[in-house]
């Protein structure tokens, strides 16, 4: 058996960070190498080096026994390396054909795009690998699962035989993941070799031939799936024993804080993305909203927090109706919001930490008297919160943009939790964070629940939903498929709901607590 790809001693430094530290990995021909590591372990940096998007500071790349230099995507493509990026690299307003042909456009009459030729080739590839897709469809109209197929077709169209799949399951339902694995196996049968990047342990155990684990930019070790267990992989990834469950007491739900009835919401492009949903959140419970991203969760949260207007329907906060109201009014009624995109909505990166900590309360006593800001009070508030919520920052005068992702999120949590709140809306609260921060934020959410706050948790990480929720609502195409008691839920059942399928019969109760925690 030959090695199609070897990386030897790859090192990459960014200002202040050693992203890759002498990394060695080996990909065998016709095999699947899983590259496992938590967020920030250096997986993506390594793959961007392999694909020519970054230049390594040290180390060499050996393709089929030959040392090569890769200066850009074109070099990588020429060596038969193709990459399916975590965030799809597709132009939404163009067709499948146009996206596939971009960069290697065949022409007719020496000048004009030959789309027919490309479309024919796409159909061929579709048939060969079972990747069904309409070449004339616009990307923006396709669901994420199909978009991923287009990404794979793009790579195959360029005749790649080494495929890098960067976190390919992050946006898929469990059933779509199965479909993807089928495609991966058929690719292997046709002689392709694959690097599979992920932070999900079970997937690795399910599909990999070899496993290499990265931590803090270094290779921790390589292991075969036969020797590995979830516990071993978890401790390799994190570097210490990890408790795989969130410890929590059973919920003691009381009266509802939030009641939603027949809610319809349009997104900014005027598409109806929330299609008549009803639910309530009670004091002292966590209602988890599961679902593949882009099924209306974002718009639901925006509508609840006043960032998008309601098309129709009713929202009641503590029994009072919410309609035609401003975000400020909602905040003042005791709603805390941990936004999905913390850098877009949650923080002003060019403002110092102390200002970010009063972003929602700056206009009220004690932070303001009349229209004048009380700087001294603002500073004291910041010092106290930074200490209380363990925000690692050189000082409160540092700009929020200078903090790590985990500490930025802690600033948001500190700010939102420092107000008197009745309802917490947490949207993707741990996306892209390291394990330590995830554990901390999970424990804070549960603590708020136990204090009697109602929590609405929106997450596309099914494991996070299962670990924290007391009840789970599954959203699909703007509808709620079903609301289930957490004790009765299991992954397969929810997965089917996430794909829009109502399973026959009642779900099987799960044995024991959900085994896996999110990383």
């Amino acid at each position, binding site marked *: 058996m030959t090695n199609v790809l070897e990386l030897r001693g790859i090192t990459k430094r960014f200002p202040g960070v050693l992203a890759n530290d002498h990394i060695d990995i080996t990909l065998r021909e016709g095999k699947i190498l899983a590259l496992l590591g938590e967020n920030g372990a250096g997986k993506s940096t390594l793959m961007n080096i392999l694909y020519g998007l970054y230049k390594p500071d040290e180390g060499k790349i050996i393709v089929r026994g030959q040392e090569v230099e890769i200066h850009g995507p074109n070099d990588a493509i020429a060596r038969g390396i193709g990459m399916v990026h975590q965030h799809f690299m597709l132009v939404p307003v163009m067709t499948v054909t146009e996206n596939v042909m971009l960069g290697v456009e065949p022409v007719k009459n020496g000048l004009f795009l030959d789309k027919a030729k490309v479309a024919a080739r796409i159909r061929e590839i579709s048939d060969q690998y079972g990747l069904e897709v309409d070449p004339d469809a616009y990307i923006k109209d396709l669901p994420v699962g199909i978009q991923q197929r287009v990404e794979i077709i793009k790579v195959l169209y360029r005749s790649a035989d080494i495929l890098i799949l960067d976190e390919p399951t992050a946006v898929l339902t469990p059933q779509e993941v199965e479909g993807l694995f089928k495609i991966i196996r058929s690719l292997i049968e046709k002689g392709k070799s694959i690097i599979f990047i992920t932070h999900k342990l079970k997937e690795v155990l399910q599909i990999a031939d070899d496993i290499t684990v990265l931590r803090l930019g270094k290779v921790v070790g390589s292991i075969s799936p036969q020797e590995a267990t979830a516990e071993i992989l978890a401790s390799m990834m994190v570097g210490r024993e990890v408790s795989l469950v969130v410890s929590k007491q059973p919920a003691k739900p009381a009266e509802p804080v939030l009641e939603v009835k027949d809610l319809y919401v349009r997104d900014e492009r005027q598409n109806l993305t929330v299609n008549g949903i009803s639910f309530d959140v009670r004091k002292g419970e966590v209602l988890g909203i599961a679902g593949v991203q882009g099924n209306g969760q974002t718009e639901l949260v925006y509508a609840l927090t006043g960032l998008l207007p309601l098309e129709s329907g009713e929202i009641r906060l503590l029994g009072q109706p919410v309609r035609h109201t401003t975000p*400020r009014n909602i905040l*003042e009624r005791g709603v805390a919001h941990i936004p999905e995109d913390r850098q877009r909505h*949650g923080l002003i990166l*060019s403002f110092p930490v102390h200002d970010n900590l009063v972003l929602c309360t700056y206009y009220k006593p004690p932070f303001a008297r009349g*229209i*004048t800001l009380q700087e001294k009070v603002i500073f004291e508030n910041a010092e106290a919160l930074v200490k209380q919520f363990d925000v690692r920052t050189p000082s409160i005068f540092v700009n929020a943009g200078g903090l790590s992702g985990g500490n930025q999120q802690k600033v948001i949590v500190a700010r939102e939790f420092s107000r008197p709140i009745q309802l917490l809306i947490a949207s993707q609260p741990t996306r892209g964070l390291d394990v330590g921060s995830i554990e901390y934020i999970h424990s804070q959410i549960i603590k708020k629940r136990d204090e009697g706050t109602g929590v609405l948790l929106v997450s596309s990480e099914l494991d996070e939903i299962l670990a924290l929720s007391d009840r789970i609502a599954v959203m699909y195409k703007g509808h709620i498929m079903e609301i289930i008691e957490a004790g009765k839920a299991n992954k397969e059942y929810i997965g089917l709901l996430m794909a829009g399928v109502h399973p026959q019969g009642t779900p099987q109760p799960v044995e024991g607590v959900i085994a896996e925690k999110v990383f």
Partner: protein
Amino acid sequence: MTEKDKPKSKTTEGIGGGSLREALRVPALAVLTGLLIGAIAIVVSGSNVFEAYYALFVGSFGDPVRFFNGFQQFFTTGETAGLLRAIYPFTESLVTATPYIFAGLSVALGFRCGLFNIGAEGQFFIGALASAFVGYSLTGLPAFIHLPLALLAGMAGGALWGTIPGYLKARFGAHEVVNTIMMNWIAFRLSDWLLNGPMKASGFRPVTPNIEHTAELPRFFPDPLRLNWGFILALAMAYVVYWFLFKTTLGFEIRSVGANPDAAKYAGMNIIRNFVMVMALAGALAGMAGASQVLGVDHWVGQGFSAGYGFDAIALALLGKSHPAGVVLAALLFGFLRSGATRMQSMAGVPIDIISIIQGLVIVFIAAPDIIRWLYRLKSVKVEETVLTRGWGR
């Protein structure tokens, strides 16, 4: 690395604190480079650089010999005429700087809210016309009523001219850069009509009548020295803008909206209200520039009254990093340059437009500090760059 070598703490950003030198270095070098390239243009156009720049210096600060003589005369005879003549160029520079301070503050305020006000020129003109109208049409009022009224009229005129594009931006997302330019052209056409019709003084020239004495901003020295209370008012306004931006909740909102409108909306701030308010205030500041020029210096308005002030104001705001203190410094610099350039034109025959070229270059260098760092081999400092503008107003 020993304990001593380690950086003690992160210095605070911007103006003030230990990084003051750092904050001033690039602007200073940008101006210097602009002047050097301007020198090349002067040579190419066939004039003597040293003569030209000496004239620029004398025109902006005054003739050292005259200073000396003036002082001597004052201390020996108590006669002030010579001294006044000696400080004349210096006071003229301050007079020139006065509208620059207002107009620069106008653009800087817009920048802080993420708005690019290219319309200071039109707002300036409308403000000047409005205050001139109040200045000449109302008669028989005491100064303590007439003067504030005329100033207010100028502010209101400018505010109106700024509010329209501000509202269009807030309500429809129409880009303020194009709209403020359009408002400029409309202001010019409107003023053509006003100065040839309703507001025309008797006589042939398309100018307004002179304002009443009760509407004039008092001057500090006897004629021909024109330095007046407008300059003090401008400095006071700079402090007010500073206080407003950095010490009040309204300023906090404005800066939040400018730095990250999405986060501002999330935090419950009203973006639309801020856009309209800032454009109104920016217009009012530019209107005050016009009013101060009419009420303090010219006492009447003619065609092309505001020419160039809008673009100069942009340069000032950029040069001053949108900070009121920076704007005042930049405005003083421009005041000296412009005032001296008049002298340069008459003495060395270098057209006054050379200053516009220098200003264009200064803006480029300020906006692309990497060019300056590369030219002077400065160490690259990682500064948090603030986003000034974003696309077509989404």
